[in-house]
């Protein structure tokens, strides 16, 4: 197996003096979906932020397509082809859907219309609401805007921090379907999820974190089948 496209290797670090991550490794292959699950406070979001450069690592490194990007700022990582959708405040509420997408593409100098059409194809509802303020949309539609915004830079890796937080089960299923579609276009996806069962179901690779360290790592289906994972983390 080739080296993974994006890997956060043996990451150790935290926000202050106390380390949250301990020798934690997260990786995703090209065009695949990797999911981080685990109990509350396990450091799932922190691991994601560490990969994106939003906290200082004391140990370990982050490689993107073989290049060491450990020292780069989040903004520079966006330019390298990483897209990030934060868990909250992930859209410009006072701006229209279309303006949100335009702002997503702010660093691009070339014509963005093609990409925007692709996003609208992926999320047709956004095309209907393109001139509406994003803050007026429903929870699920907002998440689509947020993902669409991140896709506007044409990233090679898309990182999603709990994309289904606070949306209804039906909307959640739809969002997962869209995420699979995004992965099919060749974009690697790394996401943190509370809804572990559904997320692992679509995942090529799953990471179960406990207290900032890897507990189980396997394919999504294997983890779902693992009795210990089921008992401890999936509620039987």
């Amino acid at each position: 197996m080739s080296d993974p496209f994006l890997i956060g290797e043996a990451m150790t670090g935290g926000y202050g003096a106390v380390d949250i991550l301990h020798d934690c490794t997260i990786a995703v292959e090209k065009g695949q979906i990797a999911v981080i699950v685990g109990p509350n406070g396990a450091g799932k979001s922190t691991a994601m932020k560490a990969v994106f450069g939003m906290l200082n690592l004391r140990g370990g490194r982050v490689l993107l397509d073989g290049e060491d990007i450990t020292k780069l700022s989040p903004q520079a990582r966006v330019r390298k082809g990483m897209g990030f959708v934060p868990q909250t405040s992930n859209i410009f509420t006072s701006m229209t859907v279309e303006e949100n997408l335009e702002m997503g593409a702010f660093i691009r100098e070339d014509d963005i219309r093609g990409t925007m059409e692709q996003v609208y194809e992926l999320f047709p509802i956004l095309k209907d609401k393109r001139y509406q303020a994003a803050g007026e949309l429903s929870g699920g539609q907002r998440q689509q805007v947020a993902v669409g915004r991140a896709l506007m830079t044409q990233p090679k890796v898309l990182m999603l921090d709990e994309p289904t937080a606070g949306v209804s089960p039906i909307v959640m299923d739809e969002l997962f379907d869209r995420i699979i579609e995004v992965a099919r276009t060749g974009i690697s996806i790394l996401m943190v999820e509370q809804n572990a069962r559904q997320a692992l179901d679509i995942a090529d690779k799953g990471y179960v974190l406990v207290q900032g360290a890897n507990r189980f790592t396997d394919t999504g289906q294997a983890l779902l089948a693992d009795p210990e994972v089921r008992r401890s983390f999936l509620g039987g």
Partner: protein
Amino acid sequence: MDILNALVAFLNYVFVPGLAYGSQLALGALGLTLVFGILRFSNFAHGDTMAFGTMWVILITWWFQSMGITAGPLPTALLALPFGIAITAAFVLATDRAVYKFYRDKKAASIILVIVSTGVMFITNGLTRIIIGPQEQNFADGARFVISAQGFKDATGLSEALVIKSTTAITVITAAICVAVLFWFLNKTRTGKSMRAFSDNEDLALLSGINPERVVMVTWIIASALAVIAGTLYGLDKSFRPFIYFQLLLPIAASAVVGGLGNPLGAIAGGFIIAFSEVFVTYAWKKVVGYLVVLDLEPTTLLQLLSTDYKFAVSFTILIIVLLFRPTGIFKGK
């Protein structure tokens, strides 16, 4: 009953002055609200930025006049305006570099920035007083009236006249142009949109690769331009005194807060709300009411709700009422 004359008197003494004052406040409040939206603090130096810029406009106007350059029927100050804006913007950008940037990089609390802005206010105020002095200055020239009292009376045969000073007309027209240009800029250009994005959600804007220093710089330039224009229009329409400009901070801040801090549309609405309330409450309605009632019922008092000296009380009361019942302003602010 003389409805026509009453209407003319109303337009002349209430509506037109309110419109002009409202335009001036709206421009001032726009500058304040933009700075708040992007830099997230109430800039106490804004009134003195207005004074500082207007001072340069006055000085350049005098220089132009001494060289015999005028704008014909328009005030020479309009020619001087771009130069005043350039100097003020340079000064404001210099203060940003020397003062505000340090606290921005430190992510200091907004109240610290407010206090810092009072320091800048002191310096700007002092410089203005040193350069031009604290006295009153008049610098309006060109045609005095668009519609003069006699002309109106001759044309309509009414005993009341609707007088429109050219400065009033210029104020309203300039303000309308500025607002149109500003909104075009904010809604249609990439830079304008990036400013709105930054104001809406700073973290996400950074994530999208928007350069914060550039946004801040553009904001300061626009805010200075608006401040100088507002100050010059106010000075043309009334007169220039550094102290009055410092006091203007209150109605301007009230306009911005009433409309919702950080919301440009709200700033304009707030400006007119404050201006019209002030004029309404402090105008002596005797004349208008006198035309409307039968002669022997003519009111004996001035029918003035509050003396003009209490105009601050008007902006303040509206401010408090809005803050109590709708803390984010009439239009949603921050």
